[in-house]
């Protein structure tokens, strides 16, 4: 066992939030920080000067966590057995320096003001009886206005490309009229528009909806960020999600926060390291972490502050694995709150169109070169006469299509057999003529959806896997039907020659990709009796342990999480730097 000199901060994981903390805390202090990353080091050059190999990156998951060593288990409910997530399906957590943000799609949202008060808003507007008995959604401990300055900073760090919809209270044409009031426009104009996105935009305008370009953490033009990193604009090469960007146009820790953090000389990332547990002293405070390196040697890194900055699921797991005399059920779990409010997202493409004589060039661009509407998201539409709460962003299929990962299901609903002469000839004719309109719907929290340790399955290091208990409920099924009809209206308005609609959500299944947006399990709140951390991610029962990332979300809104993950990390970084180290204790 190797003992390292104590540092001020140690983080579990070397991804997005760890690099944000390091870049904000280290340059103006003398603090020292270490991050432990399970994957390898990787950099834009030369690691991503790669060939565009869709087999390797899309089907063989070159950027993702190595499931052969450790994974998670799932069951739909407590009556059913849990089984391991043996191969990639529902979500794609990454590994390697920079984490999942290296292979992400880069949609960069601010959550809507209403998202932060899901429970109180729905109760006030529609009555308590509209909240199902087992729904455990709760308000966030902070509101949109608290986060606005941090969303703003994040967007300028990243060089987000988009069009403002609400600038200082003024609603601007062409932007998202439902967004919260912003103090500055996006730092870069929207990405180039795709043909399909343009068709969607025109159709939505004809339906009196409010389409706007996708806000993207991908540069639409050259940009020098506040740290002095100079980056190129997007080449629209068509290899984006699941790949590292070879020009650094797609924002990641590698392009943005790691360089200023490493330049201090007081930040170290140790790769190939798997954290086993957070160590605690008799008084219950954390003293550091125990980890194993690539050769199997055990290390202890002592630190003043421990940050769980890994993927959502692994952060929850580390808390539960860190059992000891002071915290017999795990860190943060003295009141049984860890694992609660696990939620996900309804990411589906319920309406598909075939245009017999139109090519859309779907293989160009990236996952953000498209348009969106928020008319049916959150409470942007009246739910008084509907049989569900919440909603979704609706979007036109974007670019970056390639045949290996698209051909298997592209013609579902359009030909009877997905093989044979008929399938082949239609695929050849229509591969670039079939497009979908999809939804990313919110996922409320329920008492029956939660995370705990699996009693049976263990990983390569002998530690219990995290068990996910999760399924959809009636609210989401009703939401899906309503939204599928809206998507179908839009596809028809887009002039498709044939339309295929899938109205039913169907049971949740672990083998179909939906999104890498699991949230909750270590949620933030105002009251230690109904949350694991305060609004800074500081764990109530172990105040020198912090959690970052989407595990903090009380429930999951209908938009991608990374914008809010980043804004929360910037807020936590400021509090750690300016207040915590001056006077260690609870940040209220």
């Amino acid at each position: 066992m190797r003992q390292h000199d104590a540092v001020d901060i140690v983080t579990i994981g070397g991804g997005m939030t760890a690099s944000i903390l390091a870049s904000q805390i280290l340059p103006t202090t003398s603090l020292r920080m270490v991050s432990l990353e399970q994957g390898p080091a990787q950099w834009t050059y030369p690691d991503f000067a790669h060939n565009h190999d869709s087999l390797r990156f899309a089907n063989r998951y070159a950027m993702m966590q190595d499931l052969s060593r450790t994974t998670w288990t799932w069951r739909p409910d407590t009556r059913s057995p849990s089984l391991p997530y043996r191969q990639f399906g529902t979500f794609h957590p990454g590994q390697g320096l920079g984490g999942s943000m290296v292979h992400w799609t880069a949609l960069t949202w601010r959550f809507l003001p209403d998202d932060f008060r899901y429970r109180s808003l729905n109760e006030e507007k529609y009555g308590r009886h509209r909240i199902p008995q087992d729904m455990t959604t709760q308000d966030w401990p902070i509101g949109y206005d608290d986060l606005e300055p941090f969303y703003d900073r994040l967007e300028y760090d990243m060089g987000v490309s988009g069009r403002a919809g609400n600038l200082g209270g003024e609603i601007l044409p062409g932007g998202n009229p439902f967004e919260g009031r912003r103090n500055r426009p996006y730092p870069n104009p929207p990405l180039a528009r795709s043909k399909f996105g343009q068709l969607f935009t025109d159709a939505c305008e004809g339906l009196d909806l409010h389409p706007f370009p996708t806000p993207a953490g991908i540069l639409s033009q050259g940009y020098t960020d506040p740290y002095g990193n100079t980056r190129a604009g997007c080449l629209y090469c068509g290899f984006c999600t699941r790949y590292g960007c070879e020009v650094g146009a797609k924002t990641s820790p590698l392009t943005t926060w790691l360089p200023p953090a490493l330049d201090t000389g007081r930040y170290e990332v140790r790769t190939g390291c798997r954290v086993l547990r957070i160590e605690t002293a008799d008084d219950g405070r954390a003293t550091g972490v125990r980890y194993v390196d690539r050769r199997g040697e055990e290390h202890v890194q002592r630190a003043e502050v421990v940050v769980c900055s890994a993927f959502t699921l692994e952060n929850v797991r580390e808390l539960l694995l860190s059992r000891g005399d002071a915290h017999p059920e795990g860190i943060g779990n003295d009141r049984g709150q860890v694992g609660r409010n696990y939620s996900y997202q309804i990411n589906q493409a319920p309406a598909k169109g075939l245009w017999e004589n139109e090519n859309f060039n779907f293989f160009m661009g990236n996952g953000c070169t498209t348009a969106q509407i928020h008319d049916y998201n959150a409470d942007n539409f009246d739910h008084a006469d509907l049989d569900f709460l919440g909603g979704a962003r609706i979007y036109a299929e974007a670019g970056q299509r390639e045949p290996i990962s698209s051909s298997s299901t592209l013609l579902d609903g359009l030909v009877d057999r997905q093989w044979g002469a008929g399938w082949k000839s239609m695929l050849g004719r229509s591969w670039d003529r079939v497009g979908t309109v999809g939804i990313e719907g919110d996922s409320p929290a329920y008492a029956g959806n939660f995370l705990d340790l699996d009693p049976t399955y263990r990983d390569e290091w002998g530690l219990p896997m995290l068990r996910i208990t999760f399924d959809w409920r009636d609210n989401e099924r009703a939401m899906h039907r309503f939204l599928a009809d809206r998507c179908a209206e839009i596809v028809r308005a887009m002039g498709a020659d044939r339309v295929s609609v899938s109205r039913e959500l169907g049971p949740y299944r672990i083998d179909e990709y939906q999104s890498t947006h699991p949230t909750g399990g270590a949620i933030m709140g105002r009251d230690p009796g109904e949350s694991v951390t305060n609004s800074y991610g500081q764990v109530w029962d172990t105040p020198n342990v912090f959690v970052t990332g989407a595990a903090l979300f009380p429930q999951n809104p209908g938009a991608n999480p990374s914008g809010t993950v980043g804004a929360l990390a910037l807020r936590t970084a400021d509090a750690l730097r300016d207040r915590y180290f001056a006077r260690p204790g609870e940040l209220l």
Partner: protein
Amino acid sequence: MTADETRPQAGGSGARTGPAPTVTRRSVLKSLSVLGGAGLVGGATLVGCTPDATRSTGTAATADDVHQPDRPPLPPDETPKGPRFLTDQEVRLLEAMLARLVPGDDQDPGAVQMGVATYIDGKLADFAPYAEPTYTHGPYAAAYERSPDEVEQGEVPVAEAQLYRYGYQGSRVPRDTYRLGLAALDRYAQTRFGRFFADLGQDRQDEILVVLDDCNQRSEAADQITGEAAGDATSDAGAGVVTTSDDVLDQAEEVFGAVDPGGFFSMVRTDTIEGMFADPVYGGNQDLAGWRLVGWPAAQRSYSPDEMLHGTDKQPRSMHGLPVMNPDRPDGGEPALERPHHGVGEG
């Protein structure tokens, strides 16, 4: 794998420890000064690099210019030649199946002409057990119809109708699925029509594949998909429709025995799509026929906003035809995007 072993010496710190860098085939960057510096200089008006614009004056890239990151799974160093895992007889049977899954001829290549059998054989030869990250430890699931007691000790009982929701739960590795599945395919052809599969007429072969496909569909709760002509009432049926009777499907499952006929069919179909559309370095997609079929230009460095709206003339190009990005490194340019940085190394 240590990154240093296959990397050109990068400028800058040299702080990393470990063996001195050695240059290998993958990392040779030659004849590339023509692309030097394009695009990666600072400034708010900069829009990417446009390596394609310089191609006409440049030296054509060769296989040696290919830069691959070291992270697995790596493509094979050489295109597989001749069967390495399957027997000649198995290849013949597999190709008979492929010829029905994606039919073709010399004018209009199908899976056989594209070399999909070579792709599949190479995948099976190169990856034991799996080409993708897979958790392979038990206990494994076993389906029950009425009571969990039907399942043997040491297996996890799952209601048969629920098992599909858990995704891949098999203990049988792809090599065995192919070996046993191909043998079972012939057994089933004998049972149904008294001949080996490859010796049957196309209609009979299709009949058999429909049964396998339906075995696969039956194992899942078919999603409610309705197809319709635009603005019209529901007309044609969607995917996921099982047209075969339960008796026939039950018989197929019985004859296949240890291998699930639906799972076998699904694996071959998935691998066929990979073999049609993966880069030719993997053995399939010969003459880029798969990419030509769907009209995909494949490996390109860039498209312009105008091409996004109006289309492109770019022709399909394999990875080896792709110019290397940022070939002028490590001698100049912006350091922010490059390794190594002080402070990152194996722990």
